[in-house]
Structure formats: structure tokens, C-alpha cells
């Protein structure tokens, strides 16, 4: 029986292999073409985000500056009461840290997990130069708080460079003296409520944007071109204006002695002492953010509505549908990809919004991103900022996944 004949190219290479080679070459070329962009994305996007996420579980400021005590923690079981070796390690580490001017760094790190302890480290650090054996007595003479088992348990936690404690802190949780996870005291709980507020406000702003943007986009899509172009400029002009300019204009409009309140008082609609509080609260955040984000719903909606032939609705009407039914059953379903795209865009932008709430939000209009910024630039607790950002990223990804399951990400049209 004859061997099945393998197809070959004219120079005798099996066709299969030649084809694979040609395809590999094409793939390589394609890869080389996108390589610069890929490299750019990796260097400027994936690596920094990876570093931030790494930072959310990694913090070595205790281990790096308190080497002896860290070593003692590594060799003993959890819950071991401090022995002489531990006290000596602590005293010597404190002295070295005070001389290297890093005792504040260590105190700050422990203070993250056990508020109120930074002062213990810095104050003892100032006295550490004169410490002599017996170490335990010397430390306790400096401050009796050094005997606190809670402190030792916290230091043991902090000595581990990798720990999930920053995620616990980001969820208003902490560890008790035994290491069990418990809620932080009521007056320090802030993040969970802020996450809730952020998502609620973002959802509200998204709904407002869709409700306000839909008729505008419809008008733009159905007017004759020369009028719609004119209107389009009115949408795009603010879109191109600096975000800061738009936000500060809202301050001018909304403040107590601002344009809106003054006009209302001048027309007698409001009493002079009954001026509306439209800014430095949640109302201010909602108004300003809805305005700033409105173009992000109008533009995708417009691009979806423009090609919808008006004959469809007319056909529905001629077949006896009321105008409401024709809108609901015929027009609205065709605009869904635009609504989905606009809503998703606005929601994701709103969840991470930072500068507008910072300027017009007052105390009650702050969002989680303002706290992330606070920990990035003010308190410099970058690990906690990273943990908060990672949670935000995770929640947004979950919503994205839900959206994909419910609506389908293919059913999305950005323009």
C-alpha cells in the first residue's frame, strides 16, 4: 500500500512546515510592530500598578530598621512573652534607630496597626542613648506601655514584611492581642462607609448622566446636520475645557453668595438667610461631577443613535404602536449599546474621581479616592493607599464582569 503522499513545496519542504514557518514569520512581524506599544504599556502601566499592588501587602520599614528584634520574633513562637533577649534586642534596636534617625519610621509603621504608639517610639528613642542593662527595667522606666502584650503582638505582626494587615485596615478591621481579626472602634471606621458612598454616588451620577444625556443625544442625532453641529460644539466645548476651570466655575455658581443663590434671593424666591447649601457637601459633588462627566454619555449615545433609521419608529407607529410603545420596543433597544457604553464609562470614571470632590465636596462629599490621595501625599501610608486602590480596582473588575454577564461586553459601542 502506498504511503500517503505528503504535500511539499517545490523545494521539497513539507507544506505543513512551510506554512507554519510563514505563519510564525507573520506573527513575529506583527509582534515586532506592536512591541513598542507593548513595552510602553508594560513599563508605564503594568509595572507601576504591579508595584502598587505589591506594596499593599509588603512593608519592610520595621524589619529594615529593627533587625535584632525582627530576628527574635523569627526564632520564637507567636504569643511568647518577651524574655531578656527580646528586651535587649528592643533596647539596642531603638538606640540604633534613634542614632540613624529612623525611629520615627518604625513608630509610624507600628502606629498603622496600633494607633497611639508612634509617640511611644519617638519619645523612648530620645532617651535610648542612656539605656543600660537591665534592659527591661530601663525600657519600662522610660514608658510603662512597653509591657503591653498588645504592643508586642502588633510588633510581631509588623516585623513580617509581607502581611495582609493593610487590606484589613482598608476594610476597617484590625487584629486583637491574640492576632484574631476584629472590627476597629466605631470612631475610626471610615473606609467601608466611604466605599459605599463612592459606589452609591457614582451610580446616582451615572443615572443622572444617562437621564440628562439621552434627550440631548437624541436631539443631536435627529436634527438637521447644520443645527446638530452647532449643538455638538456646545457639548464639546466644555469637554475640551480644563477640568479645574469647570470645577471652579461651579464654585462661583453654587456658593452661598454665588450666582444661583444671589439670583434666587434677588427674584424673591429665597429669603436672604435661607440661601441653599449647594456646595461643600454631597450636592456640590453630584452637580459638578454630573456636569463634568455628561459628555461621556452623550458622545457614545449620539454615535449609536445617528445611524438608527427613523423609518423603524415610523413603521412601528404605522403598525399601530403608541409613541411610548414604539420608543420602548423599537427605539430604546437599538440605543442600548450606547447606554451601556456611556453608563459604564461614567461609572468607572466617577468611582475613581478625585479632584472635583476634593474641591467642591466639603466633608460629606468626599469619595474613597480622596482618602487614597490623602494616604499617598499626606500621611504617606503608601501601603494602605495601595490596599484601598486594589480593593477599588477589584470591585470595578467585579462590576465589569457582572456587566459582561448581564449585558455582554460585545454589546458595547463607544463610537
Amino acid at each position, binding site marked *: 500500500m502506498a504511503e500517503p503522499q505528503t504535500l511539499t513545496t517545490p523545494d521539497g519542504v513539507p507544506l505543513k512546515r512551510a506554512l507554519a514557518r510563514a505563519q510564525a514569520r507573520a506573527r513575529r512581524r506583527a509582534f515586532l510592530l506592536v512591541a513598542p506599544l507593548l513595552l510602553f504599556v508594560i513599563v508605564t502601566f503594568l509595572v507601576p500598578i504591579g508595584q502598587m499592588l505589591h506594596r499593599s501587602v509588603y512593608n519592610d520599614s520595621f524589619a529594615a530598621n529593627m533587625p535584632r528584634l525582627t530576628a527574635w520574633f523569627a526564632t520564637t513562637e507567636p504569643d511568647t512573652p518577651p524574655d531578656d533577649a527580646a528586651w535587649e534586642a528592643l533596647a539596642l534596636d531603638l538606640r540604633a534607630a534613634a542614632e540613624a*534617625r529612623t525611629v520615627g519610621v518604625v513608630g509610624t509603621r507600628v502606629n498603622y496597626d496600633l494607633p497611639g504608639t508612634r*509617640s511611644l517610639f519617638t519619645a523612648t528613642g530620645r532617651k535610648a542613648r542612656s539605656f543600660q542593662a537591665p534592659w527591661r527595667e530601663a525600657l519600662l522606666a522610660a514608658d510603662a506601655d512597653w509591657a503591653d502584650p498588645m504592643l508586642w503582638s502588633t510588633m510581631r505582626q509588623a516585623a513580617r514584611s509581607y502581611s495582609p494587615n493593610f487590606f484589613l485596615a482598608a476594610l476597617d478591621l484590625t487584629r486583637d492581642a491574640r492576632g484574631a481579626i476584629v472590627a476597629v472602634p466605631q470612631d475610626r471606621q471610615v473606609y467601608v*462607609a466611604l466605599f459605599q458612598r463612592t459606589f452609591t454616588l457614582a451610580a446616582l451620577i451615572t443615572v443622572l448622566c444617562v437621564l440628562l444625556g439621552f434627550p440631548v443625544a437624541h436631539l443631536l442625532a435627529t436634527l438637521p446636520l447644520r443645527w446638530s453641529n452647532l449643538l455638538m460644539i456646545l457639548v464639546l466645548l466644555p469637554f475640551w475645557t480644563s477640568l479645574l476651570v469647570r470645577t471652579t466655575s461651579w464654585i462661583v455658581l453654587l456658593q*452661598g453668595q454665588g450666582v444661583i443663590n444671589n439670583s434666587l434671593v434677588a427674584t424673591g424666591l429665597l429669603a436672604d438667610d435661607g440661601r441653599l447649601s449647594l456646595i*461643600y457637601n454631597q450636592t456640590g459633588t453630584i452637580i459638578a461631577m454630573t456636569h463634568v462627566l455628561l459628555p461621556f454619555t452623550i458622545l457614545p449615545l449620539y454615535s449609536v443613535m445617528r445611524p438608527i433609521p427613523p423609518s423603524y419608529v415610523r413603521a412601528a407607529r404605522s403598525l399601530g404602536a403608541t409613541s411610548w410603545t414604539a420608543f420602548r420596543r423599537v427605539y430604546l433597544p437599538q440605543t442600548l449599546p450606547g447606554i451601556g457604553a456611556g453608563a459604564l464609562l461614567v461609572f468607572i470614571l466617577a468611582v475613581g474621581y478625585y479632584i472635583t470632590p476634593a474641591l467642591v465636596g466639603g*466633608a460629606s462629599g468626599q469619595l474613597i479616592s480622596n482618602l487614597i490621595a490623602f494616604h499617598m501625599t499626606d*500621611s*504617606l501610608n503608601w501601603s494602605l493607599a495601595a490596599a484601598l486602590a486594589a480593593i477599588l480596582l477589584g470591585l470595578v473588575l467585579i462590576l465589569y464582569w457582572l456587566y459582561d454577564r448581564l449585558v455582554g461586553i460585545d454589546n458595547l459601542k463607544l463610537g
Partner: protein
Amino acid sequence: MKRLLILSTALGALALPAVAQPQITVMGWGGAYTNSQVQAYHKPFTARTGVSVISVDADNPATPIKAQVEAGNVSVDVASVEIADAVRLCDEGLVIPIDASTLPPAPDGTPAPQDFIEGTLSDCMIPTDVFATAIAYDTTKFPNGAPATIADFFDTAKFPGKRGIKKGAKTTLEMALMADGVPASEVYALLETREGQDRAFAKLDTIKADAVFWEAGAQPPQLLADGEVVMTMAWNGRIFNAAVAEGKPFAIMWDGQVFEWEGWVIPKGAPNPEAAMEFVKFSTSTEPLSDAAEWISYGPPRKSSAPLVGTFKGDGKTEMAPHLPTSPENLTNALPSSLDFWADRDTELNERFNAWLAAN
């Protein structure tokens, strides 16, 4: 083409000396305060040494300093910070120690360490001025009697209207306790305790609904001018400048104010440490310090500067002395800010302040 190349190279060579000219970057707090420093320190320093001074601003320079040093990218040579922040930065090794005995002596020969007011010198900071955080109000808003005590700031029934509050724990908590009837001398002992902190936050709760929070020192005079608040915590020099130089109807209530001092620090890894040190030495000598007090109503920390302070440079006639926070008639019920307290507790109390702020 070749000629163009030669031309541009020559131009580049010409431009080089201009780039290499020594310069330092000084970070201040902006507004009238930075202006006083530019007039009294930066300009005379450049005239004397040829080193040009670039002035940049921050809401509180301690924050960017910390971020810059930790990130290993320091662009600032000298920064103005409050004393408690200076001690904190010093503890964390973020600013370099400055030996006060190397500073120029007073004109009569008194060495610098004795010339500065007792207790104002520390390891890493050389003081430039004493300032107060006080309550300022718009005089036109209270025709039936102006607020007179710190308690009035928290009394929105008697004095209705919005209040401007500093967005931060320091000074805010002290004022809350003093308004709650705690004598100035007992404030810090109480604030160290859990009960004292609870009491301060409870007092703040009473005006939270009427509060507008500010971060930059230039904001309080602006909030008053806009009518956004009727009374606000403010740095006394900013209000002085708005009232005297700009003729605004603002007044300072010298009751229950908290005073402290601020000065220069040099961040670790500053690009031009030698020139920075020269700048610190020059600007904290007797005459520049008294000059600065004629631009803004902050008191000079050198004893030898005090007699030299004359009239406000902005109008040439207002006597500065009664407006300084160091003036005896302004010190009837004043609290010196506790450096030790805040150096150690700033982080933790600000954390609680933020939680309080974010809570509904």
C-alpha cells in the same frame, strides 16, 4: 545647514553659563506669607550673593518634603515648616541637622543660640517667625456686638453663620477644648487622654453642620471675603494683610488663639546644600527677620530683631507691634502650641480627625 549648526552650538555655549548660575529653590506657604519672605529674604539674598532664589508654594511644605525625600527625588533646597513638623521630619531623618551656633550673632555680639527666644531652637530647624492661629471674623456681619471669646466661635445660636475650620487636628482640637471651658494651661494634659480627645471631637460635632473646611492658608481670608463664612480659624498674618493692606472689614479675636513658630529646614539630599545653608544663615540674621515682620504680622524669633520692627511696609504707617502674636496685650488667653505633643501625636490624631470628617 553647517552654519546653522555652528550658530546653534555657539548659542548653546552662550546659554550655558546662565544655566550654571547658582540658584536655590525655597518652598513656602504661598500668599502674603511667601511675599513677606521674598521681600525680606529672597531679594536681599540674591542682591548680596548673586544666588537666585526660586520660590515655590505648598499648602504645608512638610508634606511634599517627606514625599520627595522618601521617593529619592528632592527638588527643594530650603522649606518653611511648623516646628512640630520639623521635629517629626528630624526624627525620621528626612531633614538635616543645623547647628545654631554657626548662625551669625546679634549686632551687639550676643551669640545666636542666646539671641533666639528660649525654646524656639531645635536640632533641624532655624525659626523665622512666631505666628498665631486665631479666630477672625467679618465685622459687618455682627452689627449687634462682635464675638469676643473662643466659645462664641462654637456658639451658632448666638452668632449664626458658617464657620471656617482648618482641615487638620492640630490647633482645631485645642480650640475646641478651650471653647468647652478648659483653661489654656490644662489643654494638653487633657488632650493626652482618651476622654479629652472625645470631648474635643464632641465639641467639634456641635458646629460640624456649619463648617467649611480649608487647607491652604490663603483660603480663610478668601472665604470671609466671599461671604462663604462669617467666622474662621486663620493665621493672623493673612488676616492682617487682608484687613490692613486690602482694606477688608476683618478683625482678629485675640482670645483662645494658639501660637507657635515656624522656620527653615533643609531636606536630606537637597540639590544645593551649601547655598541652602548660606540662605538660612542670612535670612535668620537680625535684620532680615525684623524686615519680614514689617511685611506680615508674624513676630521675629530673635530678641535683637524685636526693637527694629517698625511700620507695615504695605502702607508705611500702621505700627506692627500691636498686631504681632508676641505682643503682650494679645496674650491674655493664648496657648503656646505644644511641640512635644504634636511631634508625637500628629499622625494618630489626624487619622481620627479624618474618620470624624468622613463620618456622616
